């Protein structure tokens, strides 16, 4: 089945993906595409860009991957967070990364974020939203830091702070409350961490850890995990029963006498 990406304005809170024809075929259940159902966010701070993402991948109502990586490499100075269908975001970002590398070899210059944005939006528009990839693209180059959000149908926004995915509303609430332009690095990292944490704790589609990626002119920090917000619990006691817990009162052994009635040999054709 084909999975439609989240439409702007929000169709439903559950990651916004629908399986085409699920209503039409009553008998056969089309296997769900592995969705990320995510919280991803990005901000522009004083020296550059900070991208953040959670690490849960879902397959319907089951967690498929407890620690998947949603921040993808595009260029040494450009990274992209992906929400939506996991395969779509993975393949799309890899394709654009390859194309950007070829392009920058051809021009002889460091790749620009706006180039990556243009390539992504042209490809997503060509496929009319059937490629379910919602992306947060950020990078730093000659013209400074740039942050874009890209929707599955191909529209893009250039903003100082963006969130995408099923937990985007929770994360955006945190941003709207606390964002200031020209923040310091530690303050900005804490803000992105809080936004992703809001998504993790208030949205079922997001969970596990928080990954951060700090991009600035002279350094790149890929912090995975930045914060392990959900530790798996420790077992407090043993639940096995020891031998001898149940007392044996009597024991009775009966030997079954069986006779061979008939024997047939079938040769295998091993030629």
């Amino acid at each position, binding site marked *: 089945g*084909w999975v439609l990406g989240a439409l702007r304005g929000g169709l439903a809170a559950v990651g916004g993906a629908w399986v085409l024809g699920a209503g039409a075929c009553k008998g056969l259940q089309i296997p769900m595409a592995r969705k990320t159902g995510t919280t991803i966010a990005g901000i522009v701070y004083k020296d550059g860009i900070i991208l953040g993402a959670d690490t849960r991948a879902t397959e319907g109502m089951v967690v498929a991957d407890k620690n998947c990586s949603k921040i993808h490499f595009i260029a040494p100075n450009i990274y992209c967070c992906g929400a939506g269908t996991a395969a779509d975001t993975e393949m799309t970002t890899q*394709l654009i990364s390859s*194309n950007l590398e*070829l*392009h920058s070899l*051809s021009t002889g210059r460091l790749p620009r974020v706006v180039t990556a944005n243009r390539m992504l939006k042209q490809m997503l528009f*060509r*496929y*009319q939203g*059937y490629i379910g990839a919602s992306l947060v693209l950020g990078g730093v180059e000659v013209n400074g830091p740039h942050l874009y959000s890209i929707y599955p149908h191909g529209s893009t926004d250039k903003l100082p702070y963006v969130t995408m995915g099923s937990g985007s509303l929770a994360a955006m609430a945190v941003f709207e409350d606390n964002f200031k332009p020209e923040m310091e690095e530690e303050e900005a990292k804490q803000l992105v961490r809080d936004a992703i944490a809001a998504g993790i704790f208030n949205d079922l589609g997001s969970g596990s850890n928080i990954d951060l990626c700090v991009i600035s002119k002279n350094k790149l920090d890929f912090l995975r995990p930045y914060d392990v917000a959900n530790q798996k619990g420790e077992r407090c006691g043993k639940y096995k029963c020891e031998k001898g817990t149940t007392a044996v009162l009597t024991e009775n052994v009966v030997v079954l006498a069986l006779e061979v009635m008939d024997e047939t040999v079938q040769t295998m054709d091993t030629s």
Partner: protein
Amino acid sequence: MNTRGLGSQLKDSIPVAEFSASGAFGGHDTLRRGFTSVKNELFPNHPLELSEKTFQLNHDKMNFSTLRNIQGLHAPLKLQMEFKAVKQVQRLPFLHSSNLSLDILRGNDESIDFEDILNDPLQSEVMGEPHMMVEYKLGLL
């Protein structure tokens, strides 16, 4: 009939020859194509099928039209002549050509798309029958 948009590219009729279920060169291969049905030939199975089939053509048309507006009629004319010349350089009928010059002219040599990764014709498991195809090409069949 919708003359604008993709509706105009839907076929009204299918040639009868396509309905033979014999397989082999020139016939309908039931094993590989599935059962014949009028609906399958006329209506697309996926909304993007039509637009993807004609994507390269429309892309070229758009580029030529822009080029004509910017540089004048000579630019697309010269380029189309080069396209024609380069399309004639092919291998034997049953072998796939890399179309290197065509790719360079189109600018595809500097980009990677799904056609390079998925369903690469150079890695196809099926091949035309060499003898029959060469005989057909030479008119001996």
